[in-house]
């Protein structure tokens, strides 16, 4: 029990948030929305890491979440730079139209 809440509920909540992110990645065509859904999936995993870290009374999980946040920030910065470059060149970020890397 974490302050009276079973770990099962945290697992359920993280799973549902992760699935929402996964469905978003599959169902949308806008690259920026897909990026945001990836962020949502990362956050679901972070939430579960923090819950288990509190459950085991071990700080490693929270340190790991800290590193995940750093990597997510780096990923978003590079990814959005690539997307804005693509938009500048071909005027769209629709994933169905980004079928070739050469132009």
């Amino acid at each position, binding site marked *: 029990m974490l302050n009276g809440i079973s770990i099962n509920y945290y697992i359920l909540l993280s799973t549902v948030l992760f699935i929402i992110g996964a469905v978003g990645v599959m169902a949308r065509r806008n690259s920026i929305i897909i990026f945001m859904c990836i962020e949502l999936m990362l956050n679901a995993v972070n939430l579960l890491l923090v819950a288990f870290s509190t*459950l085991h009374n071990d700080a490693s999980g929270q340190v790991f979440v800290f590193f995940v946040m750093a990597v997510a*920030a780096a990923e978003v910065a590079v990814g959005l*730079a690539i997307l804005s470059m693509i938009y500048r060149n071909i005027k769209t970020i629709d994933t169905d139209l980004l079928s070739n890397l050469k132009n």
Partner: protein
Amino acid sequence: MLGYTITQWLFGILSFLAIMFGLMVVFSRNPVNSVLYLVMTFFCIAGHYLLLNAQFLAVVHIVVYAGAIMVLFLFVIMLMNLNEDTEPQRTWLSKIIAAVAGGMLLFVLVGSLKGAGQLGIAQHGSSQIGLVKNLGRVLFTEFLFPFEIASILLLAALVGSIMIGKKEIN
């Protein structure tokens, strides 16, 4: 209140809001609205961190995600001038296939993780590990090397995004 403690009420409300806003991120047609709903989801997750006694992570989460990353998203969306009219839509068939695939993944994950509470873990009540003092001690002793590597990663991302984003001169 109805046999639940205040923490359980807060957990339920925050979970409901997080899932609702998460669904709105996926279903909203306007990308700007999606970003704002995602910010609300992040605030709900920060509330969960506070419930789990991870104050440091809650603050960092709000500062990094709601403060920095989502502003970056908003900037890029407004730079590209995206709105409902330019939003590409998948066909209904592929949307239904995505929903069915997600539902099956949910089924499998929930089914396989259902028994995790009966693992026989030693369970603690109010932990102090999420406070800045304790987390900082672990971060700067046990995880000092990964911490420095993370700074190099951020520097590389900084240089890389500038290199990618700048206009080519020739």
